[in-house]
């Protein structure tokens, strides 16, 4: 697999769209390309952020936050 092919597959990999039969080859290439491959995968995960930011923020209730913080503080005490 060329590095360009690996980059293509990495973009599919980070959104979970690689088919099972493609995963083995991808993981082999990932090992052989080493840190360069890891850097590409890390970069590709930036797209997750972009997809989320393409959405208009949705409103949550104040009660939800109160519940969350209460759970966190209770967990701290226990």
């Amino acid at each position, binding site marked *: 697999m060329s590095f360009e092919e690996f980059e*293509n597959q990495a*973009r*599919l990999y980070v*959104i*979970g*769209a690689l*088919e099972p039969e493609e995963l083995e080859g991808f993981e082999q290439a990932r090992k052989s390309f080493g840190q360069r491959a890891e*850097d590409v995968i*890390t*970069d*590709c*995960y*930036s*797209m*997750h*952020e*972009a*997809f*989320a*930011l*393409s*959405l*208009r*923020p*949705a*409103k*949550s*209730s104040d009660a*939800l*936050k109160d*519940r*969350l*913080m209460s*759970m*966190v*503080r209770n*967990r*701290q005490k226990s």
Partner: protein
Amino acid sequence: MAIDITSTTGVPEGPSVVRLPASVPELEPGAPTDLELMHAIQREDPEALSVLYDRYNGILKALILRVIHNEAEADDLLQEIFMEIWNQAKNFSAQKGKPLGWMVTLARRRAIDGLRKKQAYARAGERLQTETEQQPDAWVHNATEEEISFGDTRVLVRRVIDTLPAAQQEAINLAFFRGMSQREIAAQTNTPLGTVKTRLELGLKKIYDGLKELRDEL
């Protein structure tokens, strides 16, 4: 509003690294960065979680809603996700990306897990198919009228996404927001598997390159 491409999350910007055009939202002078908040959460400071929640609950809830389309379930999941952020913060590493990216990845995984469970019980696949047929170009749907400081970033990211042909947007939408495999997308859209793969590859490359260009321009 001026867009600052330098990260406020403390992650070094390398020349070949794709980063988003803006760190969102704009922070008040002296406000803690996302990375500082994550470090504080790692030290079990609840106030840091509170600030992080205020900053990002809207984005994460929008993402969850985009996946599961149910307000009450989205609220439950949002609460679970912030609990997971609290519990798993020690696993966050700035070397692997920005805090928002880590949170989005976590939220997406939880939302898709929730969707799959729901589908198993309620045959939601049929409903999803109807929704997709009715809204083939849909990407931004779960909008409230709330307009906060994410606006400029959203416009810039949308500009990149909107350059894609509708078929590529649809394939990426189904993969990212529905967690569908290439085969599932092919079945859902009645498209050959090879075509789905090509649409995903081309579309994702354009988005990736577009985000990089956007960063370089700014």
